[in-house]
């Protein structure tokens, strides 16, 4: 089976003050369809950088990222945008909802960008918000929602276009422990439905919910744990 993500000798050097900071140093990674992987590591270890590269938001200095066998580094900006729109869902640490849009509209915008028809959008958004437990709060603005509720909206938005890969960057980082657990439970639920997830976290409890835990250290990825759920 073709892996969802495959990286070969992935390097990312951030230019800084005339020199370069090596964020990733030859990372090799393989994410199979339906997997739930957690990337852990200390701050500045390069885990977020790796997430950006496999999410087609950034380009490597060296090496390649293959998305279902397609080399992302060879894609144009427009093609990468299309990939992010249709194939990849993002969940951010700070939710990143558009403050002027309601919960419904925040989820709907992902579908609008993908060109989904108005009738289908309404049904799908309503279904997604119900799935994440916010069926009764569709017309609330982000500022009227709690942190956990905002993250649920963000997850619904990320899932809107049935992405093949869901990327979550510290999804519980801005939440209290109880709410964080609820969000992780929701991600597990989504994973059980067959969703491939790559999650970045520095929270060991959260990481242990994943099937594979990869430790990012000194710019390289090493298997830290493999769990059976």
């Amino acid at each position, binding site marked *: 089976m073709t892996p969802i993500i495959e990286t070969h000798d992935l390097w990312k050097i951030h230019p800084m003050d005339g020199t370069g900071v090596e964020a990733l140093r030859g990372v090799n990674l393989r994410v199979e369809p339906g997997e739930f992987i957690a990337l852990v590591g200390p701050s500045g270890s390069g885990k977020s950088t790796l997430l950006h590269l496999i999410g087609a938001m950034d380009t490597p200095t060296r090496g390649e990222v293959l998305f279902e066998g397609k080399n992302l580094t060879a894609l144009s900006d427009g093609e990468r945008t299309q990939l992010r729109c249709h194939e990849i869902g*993002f969940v*951010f640490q700070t939710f*990143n909802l558009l*403050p002027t849009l309601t919960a419904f509209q925040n989820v709907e915008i*992902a579908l609008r*960008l993908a060109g989904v028809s108005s009738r289908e959008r309404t049904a799908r958004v309503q279904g997604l918000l119900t799935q994440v437990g916010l069926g009764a709060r569709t017309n609330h603005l982000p500022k009227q929602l709690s942190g956990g509720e905002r993250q649920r909206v963000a997850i619904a938005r990320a899932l809107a276009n049935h992405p093949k890969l869901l990327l979550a960057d510290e999804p519980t980082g801005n939440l209290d422990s109880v709410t964080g657990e609820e969000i992780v439970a929701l991600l597990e639920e989504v994973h059980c439905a067959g969703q491939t997830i790559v999650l970045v976290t520095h929270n060991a409890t959260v990481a242990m919910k994943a099937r594979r835990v990869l430790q990012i250290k000194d710019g390289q990825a090493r298997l830290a744990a493999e769990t059976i759920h």
Partner: protein
Amino acid sequence: MIDLAFKNILACKTRSLLCILAVMVSVYLNGSTATMNNWMYTTMTSELARYMGKIYVQQGGSSYPPFDSSIAETTAQEILAHNDLNVAQSTPLIFVRLARAMMPFMPAQAMVIGVAPGKESALWGRAEPASGVGAFASDERGDVAILGDKAAGYFSARVGDDIPINNTPVRVIGILQKSSMDSVNIAAVVPLASAQRIFAKEGTVSAVLVGAQDVNNVPTIADTLKRDYPLLQVVTQDDMLKDAQAVLKMPMLYMSVMSLTAFVVAFAVIMSTMVMAVFERTREIGTLRAIGADARTILVTVFAEIVILTLVGGIPGAILTLPMATVMNTILPSPAQFAQIVLLAVVAGALGGLYPAWRAARVNPLEALRYE
């Protein structure tokens, strides 16, 4: 994504309102200066139209209207005795200013014109009276006046009223309908002898209006008069046109500079507002890019916001110029001119929005994470 542009505008109410206000003022200034220029031009051309085939003879160095000009009445009679003149369209005239203009470069608010009775048509062609009479009896010498439309308003007079001119009560015997010539509208026209008496100008006139029997003979007559009266100023329609253009050049240029300034202000306000908006929304734009919005979508959203702001400010701004056009007594702007004024604001907005829109379209999706 137009709804998103609307929501962005509503989300920053104060900033949007200031931007709309600036565009409105800018469009108003643009429209007003265009109206003023239009008014000056139409006034000049309609005034000059009645000098077709006519010659003004006045004291050397005088401007028009020749308030400061004085020539002997005997000289005026000599001039009027020339061959080839249209006697019915030729008359000695007295000009006296009653109220100065409200602004520089604008005509007087009211003036007195003394005219030989029976020769009024040399002044205003065919003018219908709104009330009373539209011409003097040929032997009229009394202190009577026919008022132009605006002059009647200036004196608040009706037919039969006495109006004070230089402390002399003058009976109003007619009020003319509004004329296309402003110098007729603002005039209290009195018989020449009465004007000479009221202003102690016996034996003198301000100018002689000479009508030619044949329009083609105007240059020849003008040359003859120049030769015979070298100390006097002989002015034809062409000369007046040149003089008027020279006089109007500066105010029209001034108006054009104001118009350009208004355009630049609109441009600068929109650019700074949108640069600020794009800067503040970098994370939101980055988020949109991260979830699949392409650069074109972002560009269209920012441009939609600019067009909405300029239209919401521009249309009321253009409407505000209508009262100005009414006050200036000019023809109201046509729908095409109206659209042109608004379009100018949109063009200013679009130009001002180029940089912020370009900047927004170049926002990297990573910005969505970088601002955490």
